[in-house]
């Protein structure tokens, strides 16, 4: 792709599948990103990313500044955690985590001065080599901000046998209600493109694409303006959930199918969220690690839905208060969008790196009839919508009966858990829920099986002198 004018037409290679739920984006689409103050105490869980959790690097009474590392680990697939305020470490203790369970967290009492850590200084990425960029990205604690929170520096370090030719910035934002990425593209378009160029440099990819669903024409136009003359393409995608799932995105944009069990790099692609790109550019410009993110706080029962720039570690309650609280008590509080987001049992959980939205639903929106006898009437809707070409109803039935061999035979691990099947099912069967349970059980049994095999092998070798058993 030479430096021609950015194209606005997708090569709409539409693959089958997907659904189009009501968008609900009007609640916050026109609300500019508003910065909110950090609360008196920020809560920083030591697990805010996919991979190994961090261990605290501070103890009670330590004084920290904005950008000071409070947690880190030696593991490769991980990302350090930084303080989002300056102040004193009040406690290091388990605290409820929005992804479930309790996680060891560092509580920092905010002194309100926002002193900046002396380590923080701008990084001229244009003079840096790929390896230096990767090191810097790891130090920034950057993870995928679309919600999956996969450490970014890992994505930027594909093995040499998988050359990367294309970097895709994911601006699909196909989840209903969420508008954080949309506002980022409108307000920080320059930084988004700069972030894309940093990623392209780190992985040595000649081609960069910003992909946006066609229900966001303003973002498409703004991105195209900024991308002009910069060797970056802006492509529009048909509005269809789960357009932003990376396997679906790559297939629709490039016609390449990520192999089963594989990663985008196996087809020469790296996918990052537009918010991640913007945060990366911000990091290299200022040197400030990932200590804040854009969160869409929305839902019919939120008084003033908004897009907020929230310091990490701010409890959901404080973010909701910044939006005027509730018009009626919420029945459900969700981190993320309504299709894949996680329901919360308390508002005291903190905003973490993967928090793209806080969604409060009313009693009425939460109610739907769950059949006493879920039964498949074989309408085939789930087969039609499954973007991974699975047969969800069979998978769910096999998971229900715990038939693990059948689950594997039906490629259960290809499931991306988008939930289209459960959304569309006319008998309201909990399809994706059963499939997820089946996947987890399958993984658990595999681990168990391997451990037993290992134990048996060890026992055998012990008895028979390293022979390895019969």
């Amino acid at each position, binding site marked *: 792709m030479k430096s021609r004018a950015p194209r606005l037409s997708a090569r709409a290679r539409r693959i089958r599948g997907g659904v189009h739920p009501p968008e609900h984006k009007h609640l916050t689409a026109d609300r500019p990103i508003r910065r909110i103050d950090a609360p008196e105490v920020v809560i920083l869980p030591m697990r805010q990313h996919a991979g190994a959790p961090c261990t605290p690097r501070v103890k009670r009474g330590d004084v920290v500044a904005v950008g000071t590392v409070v947690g880190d680990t030696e593991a490769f697939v991980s990302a350090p955690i930084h303080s989002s305020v300056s102040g004193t470490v009040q406690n290091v203790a388990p605290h409820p985590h929005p992804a479930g369970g309790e996680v060891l967290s560092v509580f920092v009492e905010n002194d309100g001065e926002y002193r900046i850590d002396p380590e923080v200084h701008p990084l001229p990425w244009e003079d840096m080599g790929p390896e230096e960029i990767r090191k810097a990205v790891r130090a920034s604690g950057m993870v995928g901000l679309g919600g999956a929170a996969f450490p970014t520096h890992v994505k930027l370090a594909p093995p040499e046998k998988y050359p990367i030719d294309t970097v895709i910035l994911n601006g699909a934002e196909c989840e209903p209600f969420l508008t954080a990425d949309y506002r980022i593209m409108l307000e920080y378009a320059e930084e988004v493109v700069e972030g894309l160029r940093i990623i392209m440099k780190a992985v040595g990819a000649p081609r960069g694409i910003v992909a946006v669903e066609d229900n966001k024409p303003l973002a498409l136009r703004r991105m195209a303006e900024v991308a002009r003359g910069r060797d970056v393409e802006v492509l529009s995608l048909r509005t269809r959930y789960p357009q932003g799932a990376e396997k679906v995105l790559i297939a629709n944009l490039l016609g390449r199918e990520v192999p089963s069990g594989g990663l985008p790099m196996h087809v020469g692609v790296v996918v990052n969220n537009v918010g991640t790109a913007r945060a990366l550019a911000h990091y290299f410009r200022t040197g400030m690690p990932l200590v804040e993110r854009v969160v869409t706080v929305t839902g019919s029962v939120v008084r003033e839905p908004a897009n907020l720039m929230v310091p990490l570690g701010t409890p959901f309650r404080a973010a909701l208060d910044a939006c005027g609280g509730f018009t009626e008590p919420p029945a459900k509080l969700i981190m993320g969008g309504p299709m894949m987001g996680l329901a919360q049992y308390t508002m005291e959980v903190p905003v973490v790196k993967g928090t793209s939205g806080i969604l409060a639903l009313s009693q009425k929106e939460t109610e739907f009839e769950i059949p006493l006898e879920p*039964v498949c009437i074989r309408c085939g809707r789930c087969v039609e919508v499954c973007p991974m070409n699975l047969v969800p109803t069979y998978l769910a039935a096999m998971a229900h009966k715990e038939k693990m061999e059948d689950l594997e035979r039906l490629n259960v691990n290809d499931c991306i858990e988008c939930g289209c099947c459960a*959304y569309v099912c006319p008998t309201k069967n909990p399809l994706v829920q059963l499939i997820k349970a089946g996947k987890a059980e399958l993984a658990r049994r595999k681990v168990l099986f391997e451990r037993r095999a290992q134990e048996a092998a060890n026992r055998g070798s012990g008895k028979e002198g390293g022979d390895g058993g019969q």
Partner: protein
Amino acid sequence: MALNNLIVTPPPHLKSKEQTAIAMRDVLIALAPITIAALVAFTYNALFNIVVCVGSAMFFEWAARKIRKKQVTLKDGSAAVTGLLLALLLPAKIHWLNMIIASFVAVVIVKELMGGLGRNIFNPALFGFVFILIGSGFLASWTGHLGFLPAGFDGVQTATPLAYIKHGLDGAPSYAALLFANYGGAISEVGCFWILLGGAYLIYRKVINWVIPVTILATVFILAYILGSDGLYHILAGGLMLGAFFMATDWVTSPMNRWGQVVFGLIIGICVVLIRLYGGPSGAVAYSILIGNAFVPLLDRVFKPKRFGEVVAA
């Protein structure tokens, strides 16, 4: 830590409005034109059939669910649809006991004893219909045009349009008559335009897709011509339209995958033409769809969606 009574469930937190009951209501709406046409043509004979069939189908479902100690599912409307389809398949003058038996076979044996809605292999209404078609010999009383007039109530014995296929088309009704108002055979054989109207509505509402009906109609049309018969007459006459749009498309008893649906349509289309030309003239569509139903488990096994990422995975 206040619990706030927040509801915690796994995602997705949104559900589509699609529901079995809504789909069944759409089927009933789609059947309205042909039902009205049948009522106009056969007046209270048709009304009597519909009341008996729908009533007995609903009663049997209620009773079967009660005896099996299961939740009563009359609200989903599937029993009403089965009853109405059964009524539409039958001729105007038929002994009420035949209808009760057909209803019983359809709802209790074919559906409930197989495990209830979703687990039946055969289309209940068709199976019930074929059961009495073979078992009771009501064919002898298969009557033609009855009209509005009370005088016509006794019925006039005429050849059904399908009989012409077998014995030559001399004196057969015209295409236009078959489309709009030719009475002969089942009470639903009063003009397939009304069925097409309903079929279009079902496709518009996305209750069914076009693959199965179009494959069946195309197969019948082409194969009939190849075998030296009048293809257009074939698709307009008899119960083919009703079968193609309302019976073969039954969610439960048709394949889930697109290519499976095409083969399913081919099987039915081929059987219809062969039975009509070389077998008995009546019930060809019913037999063919039931034969197709029997292939569904196999078709679902053979035609699976292409696995995502399989091609590139070396």
